[in-house]
Protein backbone atom coordinates (compact mmCIF):
# COMPACT_ATOMS: atom_id res chain seq x y z
CA UNK A 1 0.00 0.00 0.00
CA UNK A 2 1.52 3.34 -1.00
CA UNK A 3 1.89 6.08 1.53
CA UNK A 4 0.74 9.63 1.07
CA UNK A 5 3.17 11.85 -0.79
CA UNK A 6 4.79 14.22 1.72
CA UNK A 7 4.80 17.79 0.45
CA UNK A 8 6.43 20.94 1.80
CA UNK A 9 5.24 24.40 0.73
CA UNK A 10 7.60 27.40 0.59
CA UNK A 11 6.15 30.88 1.12
CA UNK A 12 7.57 34.36 1.65
CA UNK A 13 6.68 36.60 4.59
CA UNK A 14 3.70 38.12 2.79
CA UNK A 15 1.95 34.89 1.80
CA UNK A 16 2.81 33.37 5.16
CA UNK A 17 0.82 36.30 6.57
CA UNK A 18 3.62 37.60 8.76
CA UNK A 19 3.70 41.02 7.15
CA UNK A 20 4.61 43.01 4.07
CA UNK A 21 7.83 44.79 3.16
CA UNK A 22 8.22 45.71 6.82
CA UNK A 23 8.74 42.01 7.61
CA UNK A 24 10.85 41.15 4.59
CA UNK A 25 13.84 40.48 6.82
CA UNK A 26 12.20 37.72 8.82
CA UNK A 27 14.51 34.74 9.30
CA UNK A 28 13.64 31.30 7.89
CA UNK A 29 11.17 29.23 9.87
CA UNK A 30 8.67 26.40 9.59
CA UNK A 31 5.15 25.56 10.65
CA UNK A 32 3.34 22.26 10.58
CA UNK A 33 0.70 21.71 7.93
CA UNK A 34 -0.50 23.94 5.09
CA UNK A 35 -0.88 27.67 5.58
CA UNK A 36 -2.38 30.55 3.59
CA UNK A 37 -2.30 29.53 -0.08
CA UNK A 38 -1.11 26.13 1.15
CA UNK A 39 -4.74 25.31 1.90
CA UNK A 40 -5.56 25.64 -1.81
CA UNK A 41 -2.44 23.59 -2.56
CA UNK A 42 -3.66 20.81 -0.26
CA UNK A 43 -7.03 20.84 -1.98
CA UNK A 44 -5.32 20.63 -5.39
CA UNK A 45 -3.13 17.73 -4.25
CA UNK A 46 -6.13 15.68 -3.16
CA UNK A 47 -6.09 12.76 -0.76
CA UNK A 48 -2.96 11.01 -1.93
CA UNK A 49 -0.64 13.75 -0.76
CA UNK A 50 -0.27 15.82 2.35
CA UNK A 51 1.25 19.24 2.92
CA UNK A 52 3.14 18.23 6.06
CA UNK A 53 4.79 21.59 6.62
CA UNK A 54 5.11 25.15 5.42
CA UNK A 55 8.56 26.70 5.36
CA UNK A 56 9.00 30.42 5.00
CA UNK A 57 11.56 33.19 4.75
CA UNK A 58 11.54 36.97 4.40
CA UNK A 59 12.40 38.05 0.85
CA UNK A 60 15.14 40.43 2.00
CA UNK A 61 16.60 37.91 4.41
CA UNK A 62 16.82 35.35 1.59
CA UNK A 63 18.35 37.86 -0.81
CA UNK A 64 20.94 39.03 1.72
CA UNK A 65 21.78 35.71 3.37
CA UNK A 66 21.09 33.18 0.65
CA UNK A 67 23.53 30.49 1.74
CA UNK A 68 22.35 30.67 5.33
CA UNK A 69 18.68 30.65 4.38
CA UNK A 70 19.11 27.66 2.09
CA UNK A 71 21.01 25.76 4.79
CA UNK A 72 18.29 26.35 7.35
CA UNK A 73 15.40 25.64 5.00
CA UNK A 74 16.96 22.45 3.66
CA UNK A 75 17.33 21.36 7.24
CA UNK A 76 13.58 21.78 7.77
CA UNK A 77 12.83 19.89 4.56
CA UNK A 78 15.16 17.01 5.42
CA UNK A 79 13.75 16.76 8.93
CA UNK A 80 10.27 16.16 7.59
CA UNK A 81 11.21 13.48 5.08
CA UNK A 82 9.56 15.32 2.20
CA UNK A 83 9.01 13.84 -1.25
CA UNK A 84 8.13 17.12 -2.95
CA UNK A 85 8.81 20.83 -2.45
CA UNK A 86 6.33 23.31 -3.91
CA UNK A 87 7.51 26.93 -3.90
CA UNK A 88 5.28 29.96 -4.49
CA UNK A 89 3.64 30.91 -6.77
CA UNK A 90 5.64 34.15 -6.66
CA UNK A 91 3.86 35.82 -9.61
CA UNK A 92 5.82 39.00 -10.42
CA UNK A 93 7.63 39.36 -7.09
CA UNK A 94 11.27 39.24 -8.13
CA UNK A 95 12.94 38.52 -4.79
CA UNK A 96 10.32 35.92 -3.97
CA UNK A 97 10.69 34.29 -7.39
CA UNK A 98 14.46 34.13 -7.08
CA UNK A 99 14.10 32.63 -3.59
CA UNK A 100 11.64 30.00 -4.87
CA UNK A 101 14.03 29.05 -7.65
CA UNK A 102 17.04 28.94 -5.36
CA UNK A 103 15.42 26.83 -2.62
CA UNK A 104 14.00 24.42 -5.20
CA UNK A 105 17.32 23.98 -6.95
CA UNK A 106 19.12 23.45 -3.65
CA UNK A 107 16.53 20.93 -2.41
CA UNK A 108 16.74 19.06 -5.70
CA UNK A 109 20.54 18.95 -5.62
CA UNK A 110 21.19 18.38 -1.95
CA UNK A 111 18.22 16.28 -0.91
CA UNK A 112 17.29 14.63 -4.21
CA UNK A 113 13.61 15.46 -3.83
CA UNK A 114 11.22 16.58 -6.55
CA UNK A 115 10.53 20.29 -6.80
CA UNK A 116 8.10 22.64 -8.53
CA UNK A 117 8.16 26.44 -8.40
CA UNK A 118 5.59 28.91 -9.74
CA UNK A 119 6.14 32.45 -11.04
CA UNK A 120 5.49 34.76 -13.97
CA UNK A 121 7.69 34.10 -17.00
CA UNK A 122 9.20 37.60 -16.74
CA UNK A 123 10.14 37.10 -13.09
CA UNK A 124 13.90 37.45 -12.52
CA UNK A 125 13.86 33.95 -11.03
CA UNK A 126 12.44 32.43 -14.21
CA UNK A 127 15.44 32.83 -16.51
CA UNK A 128 17.82 32.02 -13.68
CA UNK A 129 16.27 28.69 -12.78
CA UNK A 130 14.05 27.45 -15.61
CA UNK A 131 16.73 25.13 -16.97
CA UNK A 132 17.41 23.34 -13.70
CA UNK A 133 13.93 23.09 -12.20
CA UNK A 134 10.31 22.96 -13.36
CA UNK A 135 8.70 26.37 -13.07
CA UNK A 136 4.96 26.68 -13.70
CA UNK A 137 4.09 29.90 -15.50
CA UNK A 138 1.77 31.59 -13.03
CA UNK A 139 1.27 34.76 -15.05
CA UNK A 140 1.05 38.05 -13.15
CA UNK A 141 -2.42 37.82 -11.62
CA UNK A 142 -2.76 36.69 -8.00
CA UNK A 143 -6.42 36.08 -8.73
CA UNK A 144 -5.36 32.94 -10.59
CA UNK A 145 -3.69 31.38 -7.52
CA UNK A 146 -6.03 28.40 -7.22
CA UNK A 147 -5.67 27.47 -10.89
CA UNK A 148 -1.90 27.87 -10.76
CA UNK A 149 -1.64 25.68 -7.67
CA UNK A 150 -3.69 23.03 -9.50
CA UNK A 151 -1.05 22.97 -12.24
CA UNK A 152 1.80 22.96 -9.74
CA UNK A 153 0.21 20.13 -7.75
CA UNK A 154 -0.46 18.05 -10.85
CA UNK A 155 3.09 18.52 -12.14
CA UNK A 156 4.57 17.84 -8.70
CA UNK A 157 2.68 14.56 -8.33
CA UNK A 158 3.76 13.44 -11.81
CA UNK A 159 7.38 14.13 -10.87
CA UNK A 160 7.09 12.16 -7.63
CA UNK A 161 5.54 9.22 -9.52
CA UNK A 162 8.28 9.46 -12.20
CA UNK A 163 5.66 9.78 -14.91
CA UNK A 164 6.62 11.20 -18.29
CA UNK A 165 6.34 14.96 -18.29
CA UNK A 166 4.69 16.35 -21.41
CA UNK A 167 5.45 19.47 -23.37
CA UNK A 168 5.74 22.82 -21.59
CA UNK A 169 2.54 24.30 -22.95
CA UNK A 170 0.62 21.17 -22.05
CA UNK A 171 1.79 20.90 -18.44
CA UNK A 172 2.04 24.65 -17.92
CA UNK A 173 5.73 25.01 -17.14
CA UNK A 174 8.37 27.27 -18.65
CA UNK A 175 10.36 25.66 -21.41
CA UNK A 176 13.59 24.20 -20.06
CA UNK A 177 15.42 24.13 -23.35
CA UNK A 178 15.22 20.35 -23.54
CA UNK A 179 14.73 18.73 -26.93
CA UNK A 180 13.14 15.34 -27.17
CA UNK A 181 12.44 13.29 -30.29
CA UNK A 182 8.81 12.39 -30.85
CA UNK A 183 7.00 10.51 -33.58
CA UNK A 184 4.37 12.88 -34.94
CA UNK A 185 0.99 11.67 -36.15
CA UNK A 186 1.40 13.39 -39.52
CA UNK A 187 4.56 13.76 -41.62
CA UNK A 188 6.08 17.27 -41.72
CA UNK A 189 4.94 18.02 -45.27
CA UNK A 190 1.31 17.50 -44.27
CA UNK A 191 1.72 19.56 -41.12
CA UNK A 192 3.30 22.37 -43.13
CA UNK A 193 0.47 22.39 -45.66
CA UNK A 194 -2.14 22.29 -42.87
CA UNK A 195 -0.44 25.30 -41.28
CA UNK A 196 -0.33 27.20 -44.56
CA UNK A 197 -3.99 26.48 -45.32
CA UNK A 198 -4.97 27.65 -41.85
CA UNK A 199 -2.92 30.81 -42.31
CA UNK A 200 -4.56 31.51 -45.69
CA UNK A 201 -8.01 31.03 -44.19
CA UNK A 202 -7.14 33.36 -41.34
CA UNK A 203 -7.59 30.49 -38.89
CA UNK A 204 -5.30 30.12 -35.86
CA UNK A 205 -2.24 27.94 -36.21
CA UNK A 206 0.74 27.09 -34.06
CA UNK A 207 4.21 27.48 -35.51
CA UNK A 208 6.41 24.55 -34.50
CA UNK A 209 9.43 26.79 -34.34
CA UNK A 210 9.10 30.23 -32.78
CA UNK A 211 10.21 32.95 -35.19
CA UNK A 212 12.99 35.01 -33.59
CA UNK A 213 12.06 38.55 -32.72
CA UNK A 214 14.50 41.28 -33.65
CA UNK A 215 14.61 44.52 -31.73
CA UNK A 216 13.60 47.51 -33.86
CA UNK A 217 16.72 49.57 -34.45
CA UNK A 218 16.74 53.33 -34.43
CA UNK A 219 18.54 54.31 -37.63
CA UNK A 220 21.72 56.37 -37.30
CA UNK A 221 21.40 59.95 -38.48
CA UNK A 222 22.60 60.54 -42.03
CA UNK A 223 26.36 61.01 -42.37
CA UNK A 224 27.18 64.70 -42.77
CA UNK A 225 30.40 65.86 -44.40
CA UNK A 226 31.72 62.78 -46.15
CA UNK A 227 35.05 64.57 -46.78
CA UNK A 228 35.70 64.70 -43.04
CA UNK A 229 34.54 61.15 -42.35
CA UNK A 230 36.49 58.10 -41.22
CA UNK A 231 34.94 55.12 -42.98
CA UNK A 232 35.38 51.57 -41.71
CA UNK A 233 35.05 48.33 -43.63
CA UNK A 234 33.39 45.36 -41.91
CA UNK A 235 32.38 42.02 -43.34
CA UNK A 236 30.55 38.83 -42.45
CA UNK A 237 32.09 37.08 -45.44
CA UNK A 238 34.97 35.64 -43.44
CA UNK A 239 37.94 37.73 -44.61
CA UNK A 240 41.05 36.62 -42.70
CA UNK A 241 44.80 37.03 -42.90
CA UNK A 242 46.28 34.29 -45.13
CA UNK A 243 46.42 31.04 -43.21
CA UNK A 244 43.74 32.19 -40.73
CA UNK A 245 46.16 32.57 -37.80
CA UNK A 246 43.37 33.42 -35.36
CA UNK A 247 41.41 30.37 -36.51
CA UNK A 248 38.25 32.35 -37.18
CA UNK A 249 35.36 29.87 -37.35
CA UNK A 250 33.98 29.20 -40.85
CA UNK A 251 30.50 29.12 -39.38
CA UNK A 252 28.58 29.50 -36.11
CA UNK A 253 30.94 32.32 -35.17
CA UNK A 254 31.63 33.27 -31.60
CA UNK A 255 34.46 35.71 -32.40
CA UNK A 256 35.71 38.11 -34.99
CA UNK A 257 39.10 39.30 -36.19
CA UNK A 258 40.37 42.86 -36.52
CA UNK A 259 42.72 42.87 -39.51
CA UNK A 260 45.22 45.78 -39.42
CA UNK A 261 45.41 47.54 -42.78
CA UNK A 262 47.62 50.55 -42.10
CA UNK A 263 49.64 51.14 -45.24
CA UNK A 264 47.73 48.45 -47.15
CA UNK A 265 46.35 49.88 -50.38
CA UNK A 266 44.64 46.76 -51.73
CA UNK A 267 43.87 43.23 -50.50
CA UNK A 268 46.39 40.95 -52.19
CA UNK A 269 45.26 37.38 -52.92
CA UNK A 270 48.37 35.85 -51.34
CA UNK A 271 47.98 37.82 -48.11
CA UNK A 272 44.29 37.36 -47.38
CA UNK A 273 41.79 34.50 -47.47
CA UNK A 274 38.08 34.09 -47.25
CA UNK A 275 36.97 31.44 -44.73
CA UNK A 276 33.23 30.79 -44.72
CA UNK A 277 31.19 27.61 -44.88
CA UNK A 278 28.17 29.28 -46.46
CA UNK A 279 29.37 30.29 -49.93
CA UNK A 280 31.95 29.37 -52.53
CA UNK A 281 34.96 31.51 -51.58
CA UNK A 282 36.87 30.97 -54.84
CA UNK A 283 36.20 34.40 -56.35
CA UNK A 284 36.87 36.17 -53.06
CA UNK A 285 40.13 34.26 -52.66
CA UNK A 286 41.17 35.25 -56.19
CA UNK A 287 40.68 38.89 -55.38
CA UNK A 288 39.71 39.71 -51.78
CA UNK A 289 38.71 43.24 -52.86
CA UNK A 290 35.63 41.51 -54.29
CA UNK A 291 34.68 40.75 -50.69
CA UNK A 292 35.91 43.90 -48.97
CA UNK A 293 36.45 46.88 -51.33
CA UNK A 294 39.64 48.22 -49.76
CA UNK A 295 41.26 49.20 -53.05
CA UNK A 296 38.34 51.44 -53.95
CA UNK A 297 38.12 53.02 -50.52
CA UNK A 298 41.85 53.82 -50.60
CA UNK A 299 41.34 55.53 -53.97
CA UNK A 300 38.65 57.69 -52.46
CA UNK A 301 40.92 58.44 -49.51
CA UNK A 302 43.72 59.57 -51.86
CA UNK A 303 41.21 61.73 -53.75
CA UNK A 304 40.05 63.25 -50.44
CA UNK A 305 36.49 62.16 -51.11
CA UNK A 306 36.65 60.72 -47.60
CA UNK A 307 39.10 61.76 -44.89
CA UNK A 308 40.35 58.38 -43.77
CA UNK A 309 39.92 54.62 -44.03
CA UNK A 310 39.70 53.11 -40.54
CA UNK A 311 42.85 51.13 -39.75
CA UNK A 312 41.15 47.79 -39.08
CA UNK A 313 38.83 45.58 -41.10
CA UNK A 314 36.62 43.76 -38.60
CA UNK A 315 35.57 40.43 -39.98
CA UNK A 316 33.78 37.23 -39.07
CA UNK A 317 32.32 34.25 -40.96
CA UNK A 318 28.58 34.72 -40.68
CA UNK A 319 27.30 31.26 -41.66
CA UNK A 320 24.66 29.88 -39.26
CA UNK A 321 25.42 32.62 -36.77
CA UNK A 322 23.32 32.29 -33.64
CA UNK A 323 21.40 35.55 -33.22
CA UNK A 324 22.80 35.96 -29.71
CA UNK A 325 26.42 35.57 -30.85
CA UNK A 326 25.94 37.77 -33.89
CA UNK A 327 24.52 40.47 -31.64
CA UNK A 328 27.46 40.26 -29.23
CA UNK A 329 29.96 40.38 -32.10
CA UNK A 330 28.18 43.33 -33.72
CA UNK A 331 28.01 45.29 -30.49
CA UNK A 332 31.67 44.70 -29.77
CA UNK A 333 32.66 45.88 -33.24
CA UNK A 334 30.40 48.92 -32.92
CA UNK A 335 32.01 49.88 -29.61
CA UNK A 336 35.48 49.74 -31.15
CA UNK A 337 34.39 51.79 -34.14
CA UNK A 338 32.75 54.43 -32.00
CA UNK A 339 35.78 54.72 -29.75
CA UNK A 340 37.94 55.22 -32.83
CA UNK A 341 35.81 58.06 -34.19
CA UNK A 342 34.46 56.13 -37.17
CA UNK A 343 31.31 57.78 -38.51
CA UNK A 344 30.40 55.54 -41.43
CA UNK A 345 30.67 51.81 -42.04
CA UNK A 346 30.40 49.78 -45.21
CA UNK A 347 29.59 46.21 -44.26
CA UNK A 348 29.80 43.70 -47.08
CA UNK A 349 27.75 40.57 -46.68
CA UNK A 350 27.74 37.27 -48.54
Amino acid sequence: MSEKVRVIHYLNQFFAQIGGEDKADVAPGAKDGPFGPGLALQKALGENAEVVATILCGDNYFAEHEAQAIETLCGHIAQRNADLLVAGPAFESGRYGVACGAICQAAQERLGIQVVAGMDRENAGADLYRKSIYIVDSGASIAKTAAVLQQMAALGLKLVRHETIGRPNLEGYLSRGVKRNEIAAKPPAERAVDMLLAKLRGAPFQSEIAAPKFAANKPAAPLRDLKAATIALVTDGGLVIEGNPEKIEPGRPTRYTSIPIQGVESLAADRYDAVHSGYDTALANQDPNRLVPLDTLRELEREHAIAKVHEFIHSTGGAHAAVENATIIGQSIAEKLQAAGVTGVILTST
Partner: protein
Amino acid sequence: MIPVAKEVGSLRAIAAGGIVSPTGNADLAPEKEKEYRRELVMRALKTLQEEV
Protein backbone atom coordinates in the same frame (compact mmCIF):
# COMPACT_ATOMS: atom_id res chain seq x y z
CA MET B 1 19.60 38.85 -49.04
CA ILE B 2 18.25 42.40 -48.75
CA PRO B 3 14.90 41.23 -47.28
CA VAL B 4 16.82 39.30 -44.63
CA ALA B 5 18.97 42.35 -43.86
CA LYS B 6 15.91 44.56 -43.53
CA GLU B 7 14.10 42.01 -41.36
CA VAL B 8 16.89 41.93 -38.80
CA GLY B 9 16.99 45.71 -38.71
CA SER B 10 19.71 46.74 -41.17
CA LEU B 11 18.05 49.83 -42.46
CA ARG B 12 20.58 50.90 -45.06
CA ALA B 13 21.12 47.97 -47.41
CA ILE B 14 21.87 48.01 -51.12
CA ALA B 15 22.01 45.12 -53.53
CA ALA B 16 25.56 44.40 -54.49
CA GLY B 17 27.53 42.04 -56.67
CA GLY B 18 25.96 38.81 -55.47
CA ILE B 19 26.68 36.36 -52.70
CA VAL B 20 30.06 35.03 -53.81
CA SER B 21 31.39 38.41 -54.81
CA PRO B 22 29.67 41.30 -53.02
CA THR B 23 31.91 44.04 -54.42
CA GLY B 24 33.06 42.33 -57.58
CA ASN B 25 31.94 40.87 -60.87
CA ALA B 26 34.28 38.22 -62.31
CA ASP B 27 32.48 38.32 -65.65
CA LEU B 28 33.90 41.77 -66.31
CA ALA B 29 37.40 42.62 -67.47
CA PRO B 30 39.60 43.79 -64.57
CA GLU B 31 39.33 47.57 -65.26
CA LYS B 32 35.58 47.30 -65.79
CA GLU B 33 35.31 45.33 -62.56
CA LYS B 34 37.13 48.09 -60.68
CA GLU B 35 34.73 50.64 -62.17
CA TYR B 36 31.83 48.47 -61.07
CA ARG B 37 33.24 48.24 -57.55
CA ARG B 38 33.74 51.99 -57.41
CA GLU B 39 30.19 52.64 -58.52
CA LEU B 40 28.91 50.29 -55.77
CA VAL B 41 31.03 51.93 -53.06
CA MET B 42 29.87 55.39 -54.18
CA ARG B 43 26.26 54.21 -53.93
CA ALA B 44 26.96 52.84 -50.46
CA LEU B 45 28.50 56.13 -49.33
CA LYS B 46 25.55 58.01 -50.79
CA THR B 47 23.15 55.78 -48.83
CA LEU B 48 25.03 56.59 -45.62
CA GLN B 49 24.22 60.25 -46.22
CA GLU B 50 20.52 59.66 -46.74
CA GLU B 51 17.70 59.78 -44.23
CA VAL B 52 16.05 56.39 -43.56
